[in-house]
């Protein structure tokens, strides 16, 4: 927009920009510097600030050589390894259903989205009850199928799968709508051509649909790895890292170090390690995408 000189543009620009500049500078940029600074310090929140001591890479060494780090990494990777295939299958499946027209379509869409707008606290509280060993819904359903369910969140082996099931339940609707948008953009003539050639519905799914939505699936995986490495609300409420430390994950550790033990330096170093891991995982996926993502359509 053209504004003549001396029309008070400078003042208006300053006023308009100021609130968000304060926010970005004060709560995004400054914290990055702060976090970098704290990560090389021994900083106990209960001590005065000038008791802060420079320890160099001490915090990083302590974390990376400790026995806890490999466990935390393993738990987080277990979460991702279980969550990713489930969320992919469920969200593509739900999107395929949503892509059809049928009576009650709008209602179904609303139902699918309800877990997404539910807060994680409420969802976690409900799932704790659903996964409760004896009286929980899950094991009752399994019992009907003749399976004796585990005690889920109280069992070292089944706590993480329990958290994953809850997460898939909560997130499917969100990613299904993302996949649905991709499905809608597929050219119908592709399917018509396949019909001419006598392709069955399974063949159409694997040879047309999936390759054509692979960019969206790629995006979905990238986003979910980033979010998955930062899984927190669900774990904190459903298991609190337990039982016996079987579900400790990165953000849970950072939270505990910072706000239970007040070791701000250690917590900051941990968050930088997590940040580097996020970058690494994302970079790797972009390197591997050429192998399976199809951008031709």
């Amino acid at each position, binding site marked *: 927009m053209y504004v003549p000189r001396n029309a008070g543009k400078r003042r208006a620009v300053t006023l308009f920009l100021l609130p968000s500049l304060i926010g970005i500078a004060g709560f995004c940029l400054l914290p990055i510097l702060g976090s970098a600074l704290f990560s090389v310090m021994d900083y106990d929140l209960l001590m005065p600030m000038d008791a802060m001591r420079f320890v160099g890479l001490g915090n990083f060494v302590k974390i990376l050589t400790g026995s806890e780090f490999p466990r935390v990494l393993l738990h987080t990777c277990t979460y991702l390894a279980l969550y990713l295939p489930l969320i992919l299958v469920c969200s593509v499946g739900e999107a395929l259903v949503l892509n059809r027209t049928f009576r009650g379509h709008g209602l179904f869409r609303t139902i699918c989205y309800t877990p997404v707008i539910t807060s994680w606290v409420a969802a*976690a509280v409900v799932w704790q009850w659903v996964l409760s060993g004896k009286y929980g819904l899950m094991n009752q359903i399994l019992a009907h199928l003749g399976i004796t369910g585990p005690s889920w969140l109280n069992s070292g082996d089944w706590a993480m799968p329990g958290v994953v099931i809850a997460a898939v339940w909560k997130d499917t609707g969100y990613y299904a709508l993302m996949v649905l948008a991709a499905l809608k953009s597929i050219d119908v003539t592709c399917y018509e051509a396949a019909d001419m050639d006598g392709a069955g519905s399974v063949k159409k799914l694997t040879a047309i649909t999936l390759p054509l939505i692979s960019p969206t699936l790629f995006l979905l995986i990238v986003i979910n790895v980033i979010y998955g490495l930062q899984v927190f609300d669900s774990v904190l409420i459903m298991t609190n890292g337990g039982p016996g430390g079987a579900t400790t994950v990165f953000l849970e550790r950072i939270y505990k170090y910072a706000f239970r033990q007040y070791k701000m330096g250690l917590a900051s170093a941990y968050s930088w390690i997590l940040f580097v891991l996020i970058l690494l995982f994302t970079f790797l996926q972009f390197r591997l995408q050429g192998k399976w993502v199809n951008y031709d359509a």
Partner: protein
Amino acid sequence: MRKSIPALRLLRGTAFSLMLLVFVLMTVLPFAFMISSSFKGSEAIRTLPIRWIPERPTLEGYERVFNMQGFSFARSSLNSLFLAVLCTLTAVLSASMAAFVFAKLPFRGSGKLFGVYLATMMIPGTVTMVPNYIILRILGLLDTYTGLILPSLANAFGVFLMRQSMMGVSDAYLESAYLDGASLYRIFFRIVLPMVRPTLATMILLSFMGSWNSYLWPLIVLTSGDKQTLQVVLGNMNGMYKNNEHVLMAGAVLTILPILAVYLVSQRFVDQGISLGGLKT
């Protein structure tokens, strides 16, 4: 066209119905279990097999939610509402004001500044959480609503969203208003904002739902009981009512209902938000 064999078509229809049924059950059953349990007493929730319609429905769970020792559920709901409204206002207003500058009032270096904004979107909240807490501590804003709300000023995603949509507003409208003597402030509030109303509505909703559902930040910033938000209180209840799941389920129902109502009346804006890549709670 390939000839469809009727039996095959029927089979395909059945497969589809089955899939639909599975997804509906998968999604709805936990909610149904929650609602059903919330109307039971402490013995009835531990009676097998599960009775979906409670034999003797009771509001005991709900009564106990509202008569908790230590913190008030009603008070925390009001806190949540108040904070969600204020955080939303702060985030939306600061973002759209900045977006107006980036879209319509560029200055030397504004492109670079916008790049910095975009770059901040890549920094995970994980990294900034600890230092933000310390900044609030230095400013003496811990355990205050101001402290909780302030970080909402930094909303790069909102700036991006609003800028994209303001770019679509033709300069001609703004310039003619300017020639008619409207100030830049008046142009912003009276012309630009109304013209991007759909995006504005979407952003208000995403922001409101995000604040209502947020847990970690209020958990660490607000420490006094009477200031706590609904999510934090529900999280605390979780430790206190281990064997009284009906109370917890009543709490969960009451936490979900308000946001569900908001969603149902404003669904189309939320759906639009998803296609813009927003809303993840």
